[in-house]
């Protein structure tokens, strides 16, 4: 079973890196980009087969390590 975790800065937290990417896109002629937010994707290969249990465990991983919930939010996909 695979889990995919998306970690993004919370809404309202300034993302200077995303802003730099937006500027660079502007320099390349992509004028219509109004905002860029940059995040992380973390893929996990899990041994278990119980989807609900896996999601609960990955949620705990996010809270304990994968995301800093002071500034970041996360979503989990189990496939």
């Amino acid at each position, binding site marked *: 079973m695979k889990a995919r975790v998306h970690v993004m800065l919370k809404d309202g*937290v*300034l993302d200077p890196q995303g802003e730099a990417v937006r500027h660079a896109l502007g320099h390349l002629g992509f004028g219509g980009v109004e905002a860029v937010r940059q995040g992380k994707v973390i893929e996990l290969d899990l041994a278990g087969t119980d989807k609900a249990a896996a999601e609960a465990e990955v949620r705990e991983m996010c809270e304990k*390590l*994968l995301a800093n919930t*002071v*500034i970041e939010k996360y979503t989990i996909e189990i496939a």
Partner: protein
Amino acid sequence: MKAAIITFPGSNCDRDLAMGFEKAGAEVVRVWHKDTELPAGVDVIGVPGGFSYGDYLRCGAIASRSPIGQAVSDFAAKGGYVIGICNGFQILTEMGLLPGALMRNASLKYICRPVTLKVATSDSAYTAPYGKGAEVVFPIAHHDGNFQIDAEGLKALQGEDRVAFRYAENPNGSVDDIAGVLSANRRVLGMMPHPERAIEDAQGGADGAALFRALAAIGVEA
């Protein structure tokens, strides 16, 4: 007084920090990140700067969950003194011993230069030797020193007089010019600037020496 300096893979200010304590007259013990216990009789823990675990995932994130991390948390919970500098500050916020988070500098640039700080409170072992309002010059050397905290958390820090140092001129985008913060019991300090790189004139200034002398006196009085 006995200071324990933690070394993680990628720490690079551990020896400077040890020197800061030693020159102030403290006994220094070095602790490895895989250790699970602190040596007996430790009065102060120093969490040094550097790039622990290569800054993987987030600065300080892996170090904060390392084997020695729990011992540091327990020590702080019992009222022990802990100073985290630069990457050490990032580690202490990741551990939850200090509020907020250190984000990428607003300029996106690594900044390495001496900066002037204003001491924001006299009420801590770390800042008492300077006194509120004093100006000190410590070097900064970081890419991720942009201190951020939500409005409620900032209000609490300000209301409880827990801002230790502010930048005279904000180099990195930190909210309220914050360069260092204290825990609620005022015994855990995290700061981005490096007092251990300003302990003798040969380094370009010795403003940091007083901080280490004050810490070295803690165990002596007790």
